[in-house]
Every structure is written in C-alpha cells, then in structure tokens.
C-alpha cells in the first residue's frame, strides 16, 4: 500500500473544496437558467432521497438490522415540521423563511428521533426477521394513527379535519439550504461510521454475542443508531413536507419504506457512496423512463433479486469513494513511487484501505476484545468474511 501524499488536514481541505465546487456548479446551473423548475425538483427529490438512504444505510448496512419502518419516521418528521411551520405562522411570530424552515425541520427531526427511541427500545430486543416485521408494524400503526388525528388533516391545527391530507403547507424548501443539509447529513453519518461508536456498531453487525462479550453496550448502541436514523428520516420528511406542500398519511406505509431499502441495497450495504449514487440514480431513472412507469416496480424487483443472487453485498459493497485516493493515484502515475526515506503522513480520513492498514491487526471481533480497552475497536471486516453468518 502506497502512502498518501496528503496530510490529514490536506485531505479534509480537498474534500471541502470538492463540496464547495459542487455547490458552485449547482448555483451556476440554477442561476444561469440552465435548470428548469422540473430539473430543480428532481434535484430536491434526490437530496431528500440521499438523506433518507444514507441514514437508513446506518441501520441496514452498518448495524446490519433490516428495518421496514423508515417512512413512518419520515412521516412523523414531515407532519411535525409542517405543523410547526403552521404553528409559527398562527402565533404571529415574525421570522424569515429560512429560519422558519430550519426550525421546523429540526423540530421534525427531534420528534422523529424521540419516536425512534420509543420504538427502538422495545423493537431492538429482537433481530433479523422479527425486527423487520415489527418495524413494519410500527410504520403501519403510525400511518393509521396519523390518519385519525384531527389536527393532522385538512388545514391542520385547530382548523384540522380527520382523515384528510394535510394541505396548505408553506413551500419554504430552498435548494441551496437543502444542499447544505444534505452535505452535513452525509458528513455526519460518514464520520459516525468511522468513529469509535461506528466501529463498535460494525462489531455488533459482525457478531453480536462476541461484541457484547468484549464490553460493547449493544442495546445502547443499537438504540443510538436507530435514533440517529430516525432523526435524519425526520429531517428528510420535514424537507419533503415543505417542498411538496401537502402530506398524505399513506407516505408512512411500508411500500414507501421498501423503496428506500431498495436504494440502500442496490448501492451496497455499508457504503455511503453507494447509497448516494443509487439514491440519485433511482430518482433520475424513473423520470427518464416515464413511458414505462407501469413497469418500474416490476423491473426494480427483478433487478433486486438478481443483485441478491449475484452480488449480495450490493453494487458498491462497502467501497467508498475518496478524493485523496484519486489525487494519490494521479500523483503516483505522474511521478512514480515515492522515495522510501521520505516520511509520509497517513491520511486516515475517508480511506477505507488506510483505516485497515492503520489498524494493521487482523480485523476480526476477537481483536476488538483486546483493543476496545484502550479505545479502539476493529475496522471494516473484509466482505468475504461476513457473508456467511449463522
């Protein structure tokens, strides 16, 4: 393994510059009028899908527990955010649009997070199939309850009507703000996955009994992951509510959740890059294939089965895109290998391979036992080791 030519700080900087460049590109496209309202709408939907998919990936890919209730939390976040926004207006509090938008989506996220903890504590006693089915049940219960709340239908709050869609939500979602929220979400989830907590969560995925035997508080971490996932699902819901302008309880149903599960699974369980690519891809693809929209789910389901048969870990597996690795590759291609005597700092940020070489021990849970005492635990386990789990 060649050493990186970038220091940790430099690779952070490279990532930040790349994000800013992406943002400038977005601004240029929007301001120059190249992007129609339709294209902007697709970009907004893609951002929502990215937040949903990357946060769901934390539960499915990193924790290894299949949940089918993510849209329940999205719906809670959406309704809370919409009602908060309406409440602020009804109380006559003066506020500019951006702060009202931000406050309402944070309220949505926090409420979804509280529900996530409430659902997670009992549900996470189960795992595997039972967890999937119980989260599905919770999603359906949330849907039925929202449907029957008086203040969550019609015009909302005191003017609400039971059993109707919530309408008349101010459409405050601004693409630039949403872009930065997406960036923050992705960065946070990425850093969480690489943190001490994230490594402990991966240890739970790989072998729960061994992880708990080595002193990892499995219940706490599982509920934490569930709550983080629910929080971001709530944020995504809040954005969705204030982009679309009306909400229907059916959004909490399990078929919607499965859409996001499909995105996570296609992209690769555990790969944030994969989640982002498949969220963008599966948002754009249906738009391109409008003529065949009837057969969309048919094609998805066949593709999903084929992916499961031929590449069970998803298209990207747990591979992550890394700018510093690209820079390294370009640099070494030009200049050949670095002289051996030059001390080269290791850029641990955003490089799967480097984390593994830095940990340098065989990355199985048993070694986490010895390491967890001094604050470290195992890195990513290579995929071929994690396929067959009893």
């Amino acid at each position, binding site marked *: 393994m060649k050493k990186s030519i970038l220091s940790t700080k430099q690779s952070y900087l490279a990532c930040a510059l790349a994000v800013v460049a992406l943002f400038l590109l977005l601004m240029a496209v929007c301001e120059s009028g190249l992007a129609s309202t339709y294209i902007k709408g697709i970009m907004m939907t893609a951002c929502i899908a990215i937040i949903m998919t990357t946060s769901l990936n934390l539960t499915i890919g990193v924790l290894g527990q299949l949940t089918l209730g993510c849209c329940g939390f999205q719906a809670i976040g959406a309704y809370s955010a919409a009602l908060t926004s309406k409440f602020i207006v009804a109380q006559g509090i003066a506020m500019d649009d951006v702060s009202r938008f931000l406050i309402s989506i944070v309220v949505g996220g926090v409420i979804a997070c509280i529900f996530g903890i409430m659902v997670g504590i009992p549900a996470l006693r189960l795992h595997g199939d*039972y967890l999937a089915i119980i989260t599905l049940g919770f999603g*359906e219960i949330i849907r039925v309850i929202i449907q029957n709340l008086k203040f969550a239908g019609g015009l909302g709050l005191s003017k609400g009507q039971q059993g109707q869609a919530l309408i008349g939500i101010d459409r405050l979602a601004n693409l630039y703000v949403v872009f930065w929220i997406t960036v923050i979400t992705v960065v946070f989830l990425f850093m969480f996955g690489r943190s001490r907590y994230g490594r402990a969560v991966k240890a739970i995925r790989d072998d729960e009994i061994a992880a708990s035997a080595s002193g990892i508080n499995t219940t706490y971490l599982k509920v934490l992951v569930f709550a983080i996932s629910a929080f971001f699902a709530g944020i995504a819901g809040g954005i969705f509510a204030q982009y679309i302008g009306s909400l229907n309880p059916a959004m909490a149903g399990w078929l919607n959740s499965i859409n996001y599960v499909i995105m996570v*699974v296609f992209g690769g369980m555990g790969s944030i890059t994969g989640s982002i690519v498949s969220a963008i891809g599966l948002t754009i693809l249906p738009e391109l294939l409008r003529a065949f929209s009837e057969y969309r789910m048919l094609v998805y389901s066949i593709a999903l089965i084929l992916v499961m048969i031929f590449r069970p870990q998803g298209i990207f597996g747990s591979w992550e895109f890394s700018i510093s690795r690209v820079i390294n590759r370009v640099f070494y291609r030009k200049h050949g290998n670095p002289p051996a005597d030059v001390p080269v700092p290791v850029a641990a940020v955003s490089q799967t391979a480097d984390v593994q070489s830095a940990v340098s021990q065989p990355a199985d849970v048993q070694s986490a036992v010895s390491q967890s005492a001094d604050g470290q635990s195992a890195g990513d386990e290579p995929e071929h080791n994690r396929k067959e789990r009893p």
Partner: protein
Amino acid sequence: MSNQLVMFISQIFNGLKIGSVYSLVALGYTMVYGIIRLINFAHGDFIMVGAYVLMLTAPVIIAVGMPGWLAVVPAILVCVAVGILVEKAAYKPVRERGNSMTALITAIAMSLLLENGGQAVFGADYKTVPTIFNMPSLTFGALRISGDTLLTIVLGMAIMVGLQLYVSYTKRGKAMRAVSEDKEASILMGVNINSTITLTFAIGSGLAAIASLMYVVAYPQVSPTMGAMLGLKAFVAAVLGGIGSIPGAMIGGLTIGLVESLTKAYIGTITAGVITSAFSDAIVFGILIIVLLVKPSGLMGRNEGEKV
C-alpha cells in the same frame, strides 16, 4: 334472542370465517419459516395468484357443467408451480450465497415482483369473481349463518388436522421436522433436504390456493395487491400462535380473525369513539408487537435459546 346477541354471534362467525382464511395462510408461513427460517413475504401473493386462476377458470368449469369448486384444482396446480419456481429460482441460490438479511430482501422483492407482475397482466383494478358455489344457509330464529361460513371453518379445521397428522406420522413429514430441527444432522441421516424444502413450499402454496378459494367465496373480488395485507395479517397470526407450530397457526389465525371482526364492530362503542374501527389494522399490529415483546415464541411455540 335479543338483537344484540344475534349480532354478537354473527360477528363471532364472521371472525371465525376470516380467521380460517388467515389460518390457512398462516400454515404456509409457519411451515416455510420452520424449515428455512425465512419469512416468505411472497406467500400472501400466492393467494393473489390463486384467486386470479379461480377467476379465469371458474366460469369455464361451470360452463362445462362441473361443480364450480373444482376450479380450485387448477388454482392449486398453478400455485404449487409458482411456489416451487420461486424457491428454485430465487430463494435457493440466495440461501446458498447470502445471509438471512439478503434472503429476506429477496422474499420482499419476490412479493413486489408477483404484485407488479399481476398488475401488468391483469391491470390494477378490482375484478369480480363469479359465484363459485351456493350453499344453503342455516337459520336459528333470527340468527342466520351462511353455509359457506360453516364450510370455510370446517375445511380449515380439517386441513389443519390432516396436516398435523401428515407431519407427525408420515416419513416425509418426519423428514420435514428433522430438517427444521437440524439441517446438517438430517443430511447425515439420509434426508434429502432439497426435496424436503421443495415439498414444504409445494404444500404451503397449495394451502394458499385453498385459502384463495375461501377468500373469494367470502369476498368475491380480486386485485393484484389483495395478498399483501392478507399475508401480513396471516404472518401476525403465525407469530401469535408460535411460528413453526401447526396448531399454533390455526389458533393464531382464528384469534386474529375474531379480534379483527369484534374490534371492527365494538371498539367504537367500548372506547366511546376515541378509537374507531379505522384502527383495526393498527390493533392487529399492536397485538403482534405485544406478543413479540412479551412472548416471542408465541402461544404454542417452543423457546429456543440463542446459540453462540
């Protein structure tokens, strides 16, 4: 008899009727889960397949002059074929390569495939099924119980008893129990696991076809998504009864059916309108959650410790 009592008894019979359908579906779930530890999400959609076959063949069979219920024979054949195909084409390769999560995702994908395939072939609308048989109803004073309700309940019971005897006493049935107990050991004892799993799928799918007959007699319309909710509720029934247990599936199915029909009828008056009948789906899932938290092995299931 007072009016209220008559109403109550007829609600009970309604519950038993839909409960018998749930039981038949739950039997399929329970057998498949018992043997390969997979929630076969597509199982509910096998019912949809069976119902469409009934819709297409019943008029032909009646026109030929044979009794309409014979349409269940082609329905069983098609469902068994679909079940075996699903197992061989999708579940088996995934089971050999992936883990339990990939298997579950495959099952969900298979369910979506069948639903959307049905939609592509038959369209999304509800279609009516012709009357398959007319049974005389029994009347006790003001109480009137339709014949097909009784037939559904009796048939459900008979199938459950038959299946229990089959699994307990025949060689094939013993092989099934052996495979669900310990796969490796049963290979060593000379059990052909692949054919046993296929047989389990075939029986489960055949039961789904019979359940679809019961269902379309009770509610004579079909749609591509009819199996989804039915399948989920039957799964709840299987979990409630204890997954892997045949009498458990029956008891769970009947309980869910009764709870559903009684809550629909009475929950509004009992809770003074706070919880209305619109909550009945939520109540069924609430039962699931409580069962999973209090007694995950279900009413009749055995408690299995976690193996290291």
